[in-house]
């Protein structure tokens, strides 16, 4: 890999790590009184899932049963199904490798893997490992009482920024922009009407909006993400003409 893609990868990984690190501090500070310092850090090392961990702490604090905690975490985990379905055509074949890549299956790693023309697997690994290090370090810092100036205030907005950015980066046409805007409006309305619907509503609405896509044709050079993925050991090529070039 030459220098420019490496620089682009680093510049993509840094904001993700920074945002996740901030959230890690918040998690560490809020979870330590409930779980204890050791268990808080251990949870970040083992789970690497902000949604699951915050849910676990909230339910534990509310006195929920272990079964209730497990059901809630399992429901949150359903979000990984569409993420996996989106990124799989871009990954090399082989269950072993895919199983390892699953350990860094995050919204952010998938978003960057599909938004860029560089190979998806190294993108997921680099961004995922950076995010993991930041999450664990942030958790430890929060447990130790680090109080980043305004961290709590900023934490509430960083994922809005990240998701807006990832949505924009994965738009490759005006039709994509229209579907994204429609999904945002519909999900916003659903969330205001039923806040508990949250991420579930997001997935349902997004799938419904993406189902309006017109059937794609084969590109002149024959690249099409799913067709290439059928052949064992073949890396998939990004769709031609995506315009998603790496740019620092």
């Amino acid at each position, binding site marked *: 890999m030459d220098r420019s893609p490496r620089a682009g990868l680093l*510049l993509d990984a*840094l904001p993700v790590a920074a945002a996740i690190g901030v959230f890690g501090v918040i998690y560490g500070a809020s979870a330590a009184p*409930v779980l*204890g310092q050791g268990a808080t850090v251990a949870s970040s090392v*083992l789970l690497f899932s902000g949604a*699951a961990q915050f849910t*676990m702490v909230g339910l534990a604090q509310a006195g929920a049963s272990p079964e209730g905690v*497990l059901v809630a975490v399992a429901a949150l*985990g*359903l979000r*990984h*199904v569409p993420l*996996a*379905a*989106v990124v*799989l055509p871009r990954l090399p074949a082989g*269950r072993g490798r*895919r199983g390892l890549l*699953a350990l860094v299956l995050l*919204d952010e790693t998938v978003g*960057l893997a*599909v*938004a860029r023309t560089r190979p998806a697997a190294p993108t997921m690994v680099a961004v995922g490992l950076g995010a993991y290090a930041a999450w664990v370090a942030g958790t430890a810092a929060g447990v130790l009482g680090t109080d980043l100036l305004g961290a709590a205030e900023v934490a509430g*907005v*960083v994922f*809005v920024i*990240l*998701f*807006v*950015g*990832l*949505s*924009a*980066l*994965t738009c*490759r046409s005006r039709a*994509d922009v229209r*579907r*994204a805007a429609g*999904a*945002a*409006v*519909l999900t916003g309305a659903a969330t*205001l009407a039923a*806040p508990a619907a*949250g991420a579930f*509503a*997001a*997935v349902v*609405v*997004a799938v419904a*909006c993406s*189902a309006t*896509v017109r059937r794609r044709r084969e590109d002149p050079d024959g690249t099409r*993400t*799913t067709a290439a*993925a059928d052949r064992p050991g073949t890396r998939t090529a990004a769709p031609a003409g995506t315009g*998603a*070039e790496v*740019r620092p």
Partner: protein
Amino acid sequence: MTTALLLAVTLVTVASRVLPMTLLPTPHGRAADVLDALPAPLFAALAAVALLGGGDLPEPPVLAAAAGALLGALRRSLLLTLVCGLAGFALADLLLA
């Protein structure tokens, strides 16, 4: 929170990632088209949840952050998106404080 529960939650979370990645078939045809088009609306929908998940309309600085992020995203740089988003948030917070 017992060690056994933490390990069980870990197992569920890891399984929720590993199972789809190893068991889902590679999509073909129409399913492939839909999945190829999924990321943009999915992240936009998640942004809406992050904005409105509390059930209330967001504060103006948060809206300014989203607007700043959209401007930064025009350059297709996630770093610039984050910087512009935080700048929008800080500026609005300062002006409205």
